[in-house]
Structure formats: C-alpha cells, structure tokens
C-alpha cells in the first residue's frame, strides 16, 4: 500500500500570524461597528443597531475565543445570511400584514407631525406687506402695514402700534418712504431677507390676539395651526371646526366618516391575504397564472437541459473538429446581459417589422402574430428563455460528463448497446446525481423569472374577459408586480408582500418535497 507523501496529507489550515494581528483586526472591526452603531442610534434605527451589536459580539467571540474555533469559518456567512436573507424575509412578512402603500406611506408619528404643522389662514384674512430693517448686529425689525393703513413695528416677537410720524421712523433721504429706524437700523431690500428666511420660518409674531408669520419675501400673513393632537386620548382636534378625528384603519377619521389625508401605515392583520382569496379581481386569474408559471418553469428547465445536454454530447465527441470555436460561439448568449437580449428579442418578434416574421415571409410562410396571440406569445417567451439558458446547461453538463468513467461506455459498446441505450442507462443516471440540484435551482429561478417575461411581453397579451390586469404570459411574480404597482391606485406594498409570502411558501414546499424525493442531500452510499 503506497504511503501518502507527508505534504499531501490534509491538515487543518492554520491562520498564520499570532494573536496580535487577530486582535488588531478585531479591534478595527469593533471601531467601525462603533462608528456605524452611533450613526444608527442617532437616526433611531434600533433594529439594525441590535443586529449590528449581535453580529459584532459574535465576531468578537468567534475570533478571540479558542473554543469557538469552528465559528470563525461559519460566522461571517451566517451574519450576512441573517442580514441579507433572513431580515428581508421577516420584513416582507411583516409588511404583508400592514397596509403600506400609496396613501399609507408615512408612520403615524410623521402624519401627526405634518398635520400639526399645517397652518391655515382664517377666512377673510389678508396678507400684510412689510419692510425689514437690520442693524449692524444683524438684528431684524419689521414694519408691517395693516389693511386700514395702520403701521405696526416689531420688537422681538411682539408688534406694537405706531402713530404716523413716530420719531422711531426715519426718512434719511427725504423721498417720503421710511428707510431707517432709530437705533442704527437700515431698510433691507426684499431680496435681502433671503438669507434670514431659514430662521424666520420658525418665528411666530404676535400683535394683540393675531398670530403673524412671514409668508414670503414681502408679506406677513395671519396663519395659525389647524390641528392639535391629544396624546392621552389619541385624538386629533381640528381647531378651526372643532371636529375630532380618531385613528381608524390608517386614517384619522371623524365621526361622520371624513378622512384626513395623508394616511399612515398600520397593521391590518390578514386583510391582504383575504383580498387574495375573496376579491374576484385578484383571485380569479390566480389559478390560471399559477398553472402557467409551473408549465413555464418546467418547460424552461426541460428545453434548456435537453438542448444543453445535446450540444454537450456533440461537443464531447473527439471526432468533431473546431470544437473550441463552436463552444465559444455557443457560450455567447450566456455572456450577453439578459436584459438587453430580452429587449432585442422583443424587437425581433414584432409582428409587423420584426426580423423573424420577415424571414418567415421570405421563405413563403405567413407571419406569426408572435406577441399578440396568447399561444404564440407563450412560445415566444419560451424560445427566448431557451436561447438565454441553454449555454448554462451546456457548461454544466459538459463538466458532469467528464466525470463519467470511459470504461462504462466501452463495456456497453462491447455488450452491443446502441447510442440511445447508452444515453438512457449510463449517461443520464450518472448525470442526475450531480445535475439534479442544479435543475431544481433552475426551476426555482425560472419560477420567479420576472426579467424575461416582463421585458419580452410585459405579461401581455391581455386575457379578454379576465376583469383584471392578468396577461396570457404572466407568471405569478409579474402578475403580483402588475397588480400591486400598475393595476390599483398607485403602489400597494402590502398586497405585493402578501403574494410574495404565498409564492415563497409554495416554492419552499415544492423544493423541499423535491429534495426529499430525489434524495439529493443524502450522502453517497447512505441509502444503498
């Protein structure tokens, strides 16, 4: 028995460098995390902060403790999986139970803040022109002319009435207009106030009972707050009319049913899922779209696999010349961005001026209504997906074919097996072990292949009499997109998330069952 050469024995990799380097790296990471954590805390993103702290603590433990050695290899992957996969899933499930969407985009606190900051002019109120004065220290005073010609002058935030001819008003150049105030104040041109608008925005001036605010470069207006929020009783009161509004289903609603805009997002429980089932506009095409999605995914995988395998077998034959050239050319569809290819194909399939119809007509056949007819549109998207996907299958099967021992084929040839029998009894079974997981993942990918469907046909042509924006080539995910973002009133993230959750459950179950049945995760020799 040959002894293994010492250098070929597998040994666990030792991360070179002593503890100081490890300490320095972890210290740097902690510094970054601290900086990010402060920033997150200041913006109030508590959930992300919690995740950051957990992740950082995990990294510290994993890299500094000797007992947690295996964790060093697992932890970064686990951390990013939690952030990029688990967290979005949890968030999507959460949104599915809310009414987040057009009309319910802000949080309740934001809506209250916005409504409370709304100012209104009492009916019959007028705008009052003003002149601003500034002294050397930069203090501002305003001279406002009221409707009856009276003038009032500000001092701080209070206005006082002035008699005409009051000595505080100065007219230094004798042209009849006031251009200065006693105490070193110079009149400012209206544009000169621009700099101060930021500060003036927040100031409220009083004259007797009137509340005055700066409303433009030249005018004051009587503006008051319209709403006031009572936190203890969770009510919003309209100060102008006295109506009381309570939060109901995402809107502040009065007793008579009047709703204040904007609404806020709120948890609505199972409403989105109920819509899926009970609303005929949404649920009627669901089964039809689901069946087509299945057929689409299955046919995509089957067609690309058959073509890919066929080409791989051809290119595997040593008798074929220029194999490398063929292989490079056949990889090209995979190299082009799928996005652009899909759009180009859309142009090629154009019934009037598309290249495919022109070729068919040149040969003597009639043009095919590719994207207009439901059946041909389905054929068109399947063809496009075949073109986009076969190079991947070809590459994968080429690799897998190399791993099948040559002796099996020689033995079969000696036994008199035909090529087809060799394929069925040797090639395919041996391939399946390595390729089956890829086929399943390709199925899952195509089940949700939004890009190809949306870019080539947008899910259309529309189904006559469907009563809903479902199209003949719509798969579940493109149907969801059109329902949530194009079919209703603006965007409806809640409904879209609910459908996404349903799709997730469906695909998860199918994939799990598939994995169990094909025994893909069993170790070789486990079930022999």
């Amino acid at each position: 028995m040959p002894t293994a050469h010492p250098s070929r024995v597998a040994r666990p990799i030792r991360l070179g460098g002593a503890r100081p380097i490890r300490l320095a790296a972890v210290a740097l990471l902690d510094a970054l995390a601290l900086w990010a954590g402060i920033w997150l805390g200041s913006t109030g993103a508590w959930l992300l902060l919690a995740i950051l702290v957990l992740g950082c603590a995990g990294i510290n433990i994993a890299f500094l403790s000797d007992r947690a050695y295996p964790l060093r290899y697992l932890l970064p992957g686990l951390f990013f999986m939690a952030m990029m996969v688990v967290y979005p899933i949890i968030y999507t499930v959460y949104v599915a139970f809310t009414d987040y969407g057009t009309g319910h985009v802000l949080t309740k606190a934001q809506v209250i803040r916005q409504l409370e900051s709304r100012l209104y002019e009492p009916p019959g109120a007028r705008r009052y022109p003003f002149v601003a004065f500034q002294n050397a220290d930069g203090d501002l005073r305003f001279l406002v002319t009221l409707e009856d010609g009276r003038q009032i002058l500000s001092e701080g935030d209070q206005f006082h009435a002035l008699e005409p001819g009051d000595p505080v008003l100065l007219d230094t150049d004798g042209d009849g207009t006031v251009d200065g105030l006693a105490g070193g104040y110079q009149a400012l041109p209206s544009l000169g106030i621009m700099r101060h608008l930021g500060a003036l925005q927040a100031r409220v001036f009083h004259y007797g009972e009137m509340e005055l605010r700066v409303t433009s470069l030249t005018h004051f207006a009587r503006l008051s707050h319209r709403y006031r929020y009572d936190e203890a009783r969770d009510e919003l009161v309209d100060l102008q009319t006295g109506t009381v509004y309570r939060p109901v289903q995402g809107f502040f609603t009065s007793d008579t049913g009047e709703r204040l805009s904007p609404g806020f997002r709120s948890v609505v429980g199972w409403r989105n899922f109920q819509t899926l089932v009970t609303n005929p506009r949404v649920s009627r095409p669901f089964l039809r779209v689901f069946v087509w999605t299945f057929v689409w995914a299955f046919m995509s995988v089957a067609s690309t696999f058959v073509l890919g395998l066929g080409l791989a077998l051809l290119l595997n034959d040593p008798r074929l010349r220029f194999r490398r050239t063929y292989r490079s050319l056949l990889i090209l569809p995979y190299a082009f961005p799928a996005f652009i290819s899909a759009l180009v194909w859309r142009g090629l399939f154009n019934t009037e001026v598309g290249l495919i119809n022109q070729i068919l007509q040149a040969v003597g056949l009639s043009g095919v209504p590719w994207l207009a007819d439901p059946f041909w549109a389905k054929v068109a998207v399947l063809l496009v997906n075949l073109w986009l996907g076969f190079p991947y299958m070809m590459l994968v099967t080429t690799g897998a074919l190399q791993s099948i021992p040559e002796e099996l084929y020689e033995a079969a040839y000696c036994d008199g097996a035909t090529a087809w029998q060799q394929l069925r009894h040797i090639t395919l079974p041996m391939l399946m072990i390595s390729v089956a997981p890829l086929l399943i993942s390709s199925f899952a990918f195509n089940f949700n292949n939004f890009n190809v469907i949306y870019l080539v046909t947008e899910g259309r042509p529309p189904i006559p009499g469907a009563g809903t924006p479902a199209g003949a080539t719509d798969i579940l995910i493109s149907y969801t997109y059109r329902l949530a973002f194009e079919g209703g009133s603006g965007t409806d993230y809640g409904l879209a998330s609910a459908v996404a959750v349903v799709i997730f459950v469906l695909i998860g179950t199918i994939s799990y069952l598939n994995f169990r049945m094909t025994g893909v995760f069993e170790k070789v020799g486990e079930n022999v």
Partner: protein
Amino acid sequence: MKRLAVALVLVALAFACTGQVLASEPGTLLIWADEVRSEVLLDVARTFESEYGIPVRVQEIAFGDIRDTLNVAAPAGEGPDILVGAHDWLGQLVTNGLLEPIDLGDKAKDFVPTALEAWTYDGALYGLPYATEALGLFYNKALVPHAPATFEEALELAKAAADRSKGIYGYALPIPDPYHTFPLMTAFGAYVFGRTASGGLDPLDIGLNNEGAIAGLELFDQMIEDGIMPVLDYATMQGLFTSGRLAFMQTGPWELSNVRQSGVDYGFIPVPPIQGKPARPFVGVQGFMISSFSENKLLAQAFLNEYVATTETMLRLFELDPRPPAYLPALEQVDDPDMAAVAQASAQGTPMPAIPQMSAVWTAWSDALTLIANQKLEPKEAMDEAVAQIRAIIEESMKR
C-alpha cells in the same frame, strides 16, 4: 491575511459610502432634477449661492425615478427641498403627504391658466409650472406634399404615401398607448373623468366607454384593418419616422430633437380635426414642487418665486428641453413655429387627470387597446370591460 485586510477595507468603504446620500438640511437647498434640467438649475444655483451665500445643491436623478425615490426617501428624512416633475404625479404624492402647497403670490397671473389648473389638486396649488406639452402630428414632407387640414385628408395622404412592399408606412401612433390614442376619442366626445359641481374630478363618472369613445375607437380599429396604420410600439414607430419610412407620426414634442437631428424634412402640426370636431390631446405640465419634509420651505418658496419664475430661467429651460413655457413673459419671446403648434395643441387639450387611481385607468385602457388592435374584441366590448375594471378599482380604493 491579505484577504482579511481587503475585506476590512471594503467594509470601511461601504460604511463611508452610506454617508453620501444627500438630504435636505436647514440653511441649504437641495434640488432633485433629471440630467436635462439639472444643467440649467446648476447655473441658477450658482448665481443664488454667490448672492446670498446659501449653498444650493442639485442632484441628478432619472426623470422616471424621481417620484418613486421621493416616496421612499422623503419620509426617511433623505428627501430634497425642491423637485422637478410632471403634474400627473400629484395624485400619488399628495395622497402620500409628500408635497407642500405652493404660493405664487402676485406671479400667479403670469402663468398659463391651464397649467395652473393642472397643478391644482384638492383645491390647492402644488407646483410651479414651467412647460406644457401636448401631442401633435409629425409628417414627412418628402412623402406628404402638404399639411393636411383635416384628419380624413391625413388618412388619404397616408394611404397614397404608403407602400408596404418597400417598407413605407402611412400613419402610426404607438399601440397600445392610451395617451396617444386619446385625441381620436375626444373628437367624438369621450372623456376620462367628468367634473363635479364644484369643478373637481368625479372619479365615478367615467367617459371612456361612452358613444364618443366607441366611435373614436371604431375609427382606430378601421385604420388598422384598412392597413393604413400598422401595429407598432413606440420605439419602432420612432425608428421608422427618423429613417424616413413613415409618412405621419402622432406623438409629442419630446421627439422634436430626435427628428431634427435625423435630417428628415418634417412638419409638425396639432392633430387635425376629425369629422370637423377638434381632437383634444392630453396636456402634460412640468413643474417644480416643494417637498413637505423639507427643512427650508420658506426659502424654497422664495427661491422658486424669485429665481425660477423669471423669463431668463424659463427661456434657458426651454432651450435645453423644447416645450412651450408655461410662463407667459417667456412664452411671448419664443419664436419657434413648432412650439406654436404645441401651444395650439395644448390650448385645445385637457390636463391629464392626476388622481392616484390613474394607474389603474392606464393599465385597463391599454389592455383594451391591445385587444382591439389584435382584433380579439370589438371596441365596445373591450372598453366596457375596461371601464368595469376601473370602476371596481376606484370603488375599492375609496373604501380603503
């Protein structure tokens, strides 16, 4: 070790990048505009900054993305002070509480009234309009001897000019495209939403399947069946016209720069009257809006009133993006005959409705047009179905 160092550097960079998002800050102004308008705004910003020392930043975002980005960014505190967009965004943005009413003061009388009407929602003005547009008819002078005075004449000229064997087509508009098909329907009396007594839009009074609409769509259907109008999408139609193989193209002034560059000898007129009645297109108005999450609303308002609502800025915007200004002093100075055609078309058009339920309208209408164009359904059936869908969605949304 090297890999760890690289990873740390990347992580540090990632964190550094998160600080780069521009947001509204007190004492400065942030404007969101697309690449066409940002050029002009940068100049205006520089002038403003040099005079008052208040920094004004302009961030370029693709036009189609501005509304959606605002929806997400503004509530998170990452939104701008001012943004540039189209008036049909109002429905969604105002319902989401993202816009602040605008006060033009005395300058209101300097704007085209239809433009101000388009920007008014729920009784308040939410935008400062700067350009109006409506679609018209481009024609290729090499294929069409003279401008048609009526729609019937246009169809005759189209039939004479078309030669399918040589790849020359007669009359085209993008199919399916409700915006482009609307003039054919309005000439016979169609409308989208009727008006309430107080002048607002009544979303339950839908006129897309009334007799006028059906008559217009039967004309549309007839044009396709007779072979005068091929079923093309927008890109193909535009490609055919700019390569000189299309006699009539019904689309809007945004194509002017492409058509001028293509070298085709073109003419541009409003869509001619159909059976003697005016074909009213949709009017779209572009304007400036103020975000309700802005920290500098007063300053933004003053900036818009004093620096954007000026003849100089309006003319510069016009230079870069040729559409008739909505600002009357600037409009008077514009000398371009194509612009006169657009202004004429806008004058006889109606503003696109801006309510948030419009997305449902466009989708259902577009599907109906596809079915009609593909000869799957008759106009009456298709539109009845579309209107039933629209009504269901609107009723649903009013209950939400």
